[in-house]
């Protein structure tokens, strides 16, 4: 049987994490792995900024620069930002809707392990002959000509981790549709749940184009097909379309959950109900829809024609409307509230102006004629870092402080949090604000160096100094995490005291079954309502009874491991375009797929009914004993 508080050896804990299907433990796994990749991507970013600190620098050579730049982008988007957001979704969403777990706990674990092995595969490229070097967009005209196996690591790694993302997205859709507690109607769902829901729908619709595009690219490079090769009758522009049909929704997959996080934090610390709840929901849905109608704004300069450019420009500008609605709702939530400044709230306050700057430059880029000037310059780099860091990373850092107590039972130091925030905020604006002007002065993006005497020195130096400040901020955050874990001072269920949603009504960290009795939801901000009526607990919706729980399983690990092995086989198959095919390529591919499908077969043939926690044990748990 599963257990919580029982002290265990290292081996047993490792085994527990390898086999867990508990959404709270999977959240830890996502946070740990995503955090690791975030640091890796951060180090790569530092290398980029060191190289560009002064003109004609040769800290790294051009080839290595391209690889670092590519891996920075790819790692940050696919292996850091998305998994960390999945960590918070896993930790919080099931509890926010009053569920004991996600709809498919087994698939939840599978999603994580696919991401894990995909990310590992991609990063092994550093040790196996060079990383991908064609940018995170990997445009086919460039990537088909790339030497070595870098791009193959990209296509295979992203396919594996992409399956994981798709599976997790579908899982959250099923969870939010089916597992809501009695009374939790759609219009009573907390906003983080809503944004998770819409982001999952975007994953469902956006990842297939990516998978197809990457699959075709893989075939072009590894198995001799010619989908994107113009000299053989292919069409290289189609890759760009596939990529951006996925790519633009992807930016909303990232930013919507961050919006959700801020929509939880701002009412909590304004101690006031979220202003304009239904318009927030409406704006989220609308952004989700429009997100699919604008992808070609990344391709204005490819020669789509004036009519197409005009249509996509207008559609892009239209997204500013629902986004604006959200900004005003946050401001009006704070208006007249009794605001308490905490670290998460500080990030929220920093987020609003930063994100607005990114939104404004976004609308500027949406003006197609102007984009002919801005395209592929540092202006673009400034824009997307304002939305990604000012929106997504601020959201992640805010959530780290906000949900840390719920995930680990301890509270990160607020004092160190203030220092991190201050350094990070200053460093961020220092790094990227100046880049708008570098771009306007004509500095192209993705260049390994620049020449002296063109007025670009000072701007680049300032930018690099800013990056150092951000690095110091992150180191302090790490230190904070370590100190907090060593001190190990436990906190109660509602450590911020003003929690509004159901996750704050149960212990920190929650017992593995979450709710002893499924709660009854009597309105928006369920826990706040109960507290205002002087209640100490949620109103239960059912009598105390046995709880059905799923068993742990190692099978997700093996399904993913099989694909990891198969990827090596595919890469070194005799047909590959690099020409270093090995005779063992095909057998390894087959063995890998064998492991995957064999594991699936075992899962299908063996009945696994889970187990029950008995009522008596739950009562025992009340008296201080632990179920185990």
């Amino acid at each position: 049987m599963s257990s919580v508080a029982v002290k265990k050896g290292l081996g047993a804990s490792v085994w527990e994490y390898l086999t867990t299907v508990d959404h709270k433990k999977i959240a830890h796994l996502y946070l740990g792995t995503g955090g690791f990749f975030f640091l890796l991507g951060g180090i790569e970013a530092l290398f980029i900024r060191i190289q560009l600190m002064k003109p004609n620098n040769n800290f790294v050579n051009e080839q290595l620069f391209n690889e670092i730049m590519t891996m920075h982008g790819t790692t940050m988007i696919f292996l850091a930002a998305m998994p960390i957001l999945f960590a918070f979704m896993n930790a919080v969403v099931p509890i926010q809707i009053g569920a004991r777990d996600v709809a498919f706990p087994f698939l939840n674990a599978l999603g994580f392990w696919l991401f894990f092995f995909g990310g590992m595969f991609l990063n092994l490229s550093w040790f196996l002959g060079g990383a991908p070097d064609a940018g995170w967009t990997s445009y086919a005209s460039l990537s088909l000509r790339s030497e070595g196996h870098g791009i193959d690591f990209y296509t295979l790694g992203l396919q594996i981790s992409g399956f994981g993302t798709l599976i997790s997205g579908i899982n959250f859709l099923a969870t939010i549709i089916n597992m809501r507690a009695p009374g939790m109607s759609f219009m009573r769902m907390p906003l983080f749940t809503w944004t998770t829901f819409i982001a999952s729908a975007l994953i469902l619709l956006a990842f297939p184009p990516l998978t197809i595009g990457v699959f075709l690219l893989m075939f072009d490079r590894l198995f001799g097909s010619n989908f994107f090769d113009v000299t053989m009758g292919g069409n290289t522009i189609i890759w760009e379309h596939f990529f951006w049909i996925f790519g633009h929704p992807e930016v909303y997959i990232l930013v919507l959950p961050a919006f959700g996080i801020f929509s939880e934090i701002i009412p909590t610390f304004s101690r006031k109900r979220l202003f304009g709840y239904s318009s927030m929901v409406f704006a989220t849905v609308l952004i989700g829809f429009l997100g699919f109608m604008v992808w070609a704004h990344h391709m204005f300069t490819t020669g789509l024609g004036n009519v197409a450019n005009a249509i996509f420009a207008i559609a892009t500008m239209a997204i500013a409307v629902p986004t604006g609605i959200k900004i005003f709702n946050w401001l009006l939530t704070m208006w007249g509230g009794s605001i308490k400044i905490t670290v998460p709230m500080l990030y929220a306050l920093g987020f609003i102006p930063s994100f607005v700057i990114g939104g404004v430059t976004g609308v500027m880029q949406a003006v197609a004629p102007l984009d002919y000037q801005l395209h592929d310059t540092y202006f673009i780099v400034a824009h997307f870092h304002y939305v990604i860091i000012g929106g997504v990373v601020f959201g992640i850092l805010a959530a780290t402080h906000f949900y840390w107590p719920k995930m680990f039972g301890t509270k990160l130091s607020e004092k160190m949090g203030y220092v991190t925030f201050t350094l990070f905020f200053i460093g961020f604006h220092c790094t990227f604000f100046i880049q708008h002007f570098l771009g306007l002065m004509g500095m192209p993006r993705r260049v390994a160096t620049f020449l002296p005497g063109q007025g670009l020195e000072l701007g680049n130096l300032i930018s690099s100094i800013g990056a150092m400040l951000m690095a110091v901020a992150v180191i302090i955050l790490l230190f904070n995490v370590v100190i907090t874990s060593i001190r190990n001072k436990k906190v109660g269920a509602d450590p911020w005291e003003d929690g509004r949603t159901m996750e704050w009504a149960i212990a920190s960290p929650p017992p593995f079954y979450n709710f002893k009795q499924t709660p009854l939801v009597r309105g928006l901000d369920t826990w706040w309502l109960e507290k205002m009526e002087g209640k100490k607990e949620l109103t239960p919706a059912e009598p105390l009874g046995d709880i059905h729980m799923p068993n742990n399983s190692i099978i997700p690990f093996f399904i993913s491991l099989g694909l990891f092995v198969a990827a090596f086989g595919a890469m070194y198959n005799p047909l590959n375009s690099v020409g270093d095919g090995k005779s063992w390529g095909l057998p390894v591919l087959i063995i890998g797929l064998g492991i995957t499908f064999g594991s699936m077969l075992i899962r299908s043939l063996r009945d696994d009914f889970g187990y029950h926690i008995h009522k008596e044990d739950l009562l025992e748990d009340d008296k201080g004993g632990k179920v185990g």
Partner: protein
Amino acid sequence: MENEQVKNPNLRAHHDYRRKKSAKEMQVQVITFALMIFLTIVAFIAVGIGDFSVKFIIPFILLLAVIQVGFQLYYFMHASQKGHELPMFFMYSAVIIAFVTVLAFVTIIWW
């Protein structure tokens, strides 16, 4: 069970209602099925005759396909019944997005 239904007028009415409804549904399904087979034959004939130009046949077959999808969704997958609103919302969202994508490809890449 059988007895209980006969005795309890309420249950009986319910039972009768269900039977009538299923019978009606069955009838509709058979008709739709026949129609679908008919449409498939029409598609084959349109190509087989060889007299129509390609410009006519392709849109025509596509139209038949759309009708078939509608039949499938509404008569066999019960899309219009209660409790199916959310799946249908997702279905239509996906259809709209897929349509926009294909439209864009057709207009700005291939022609």
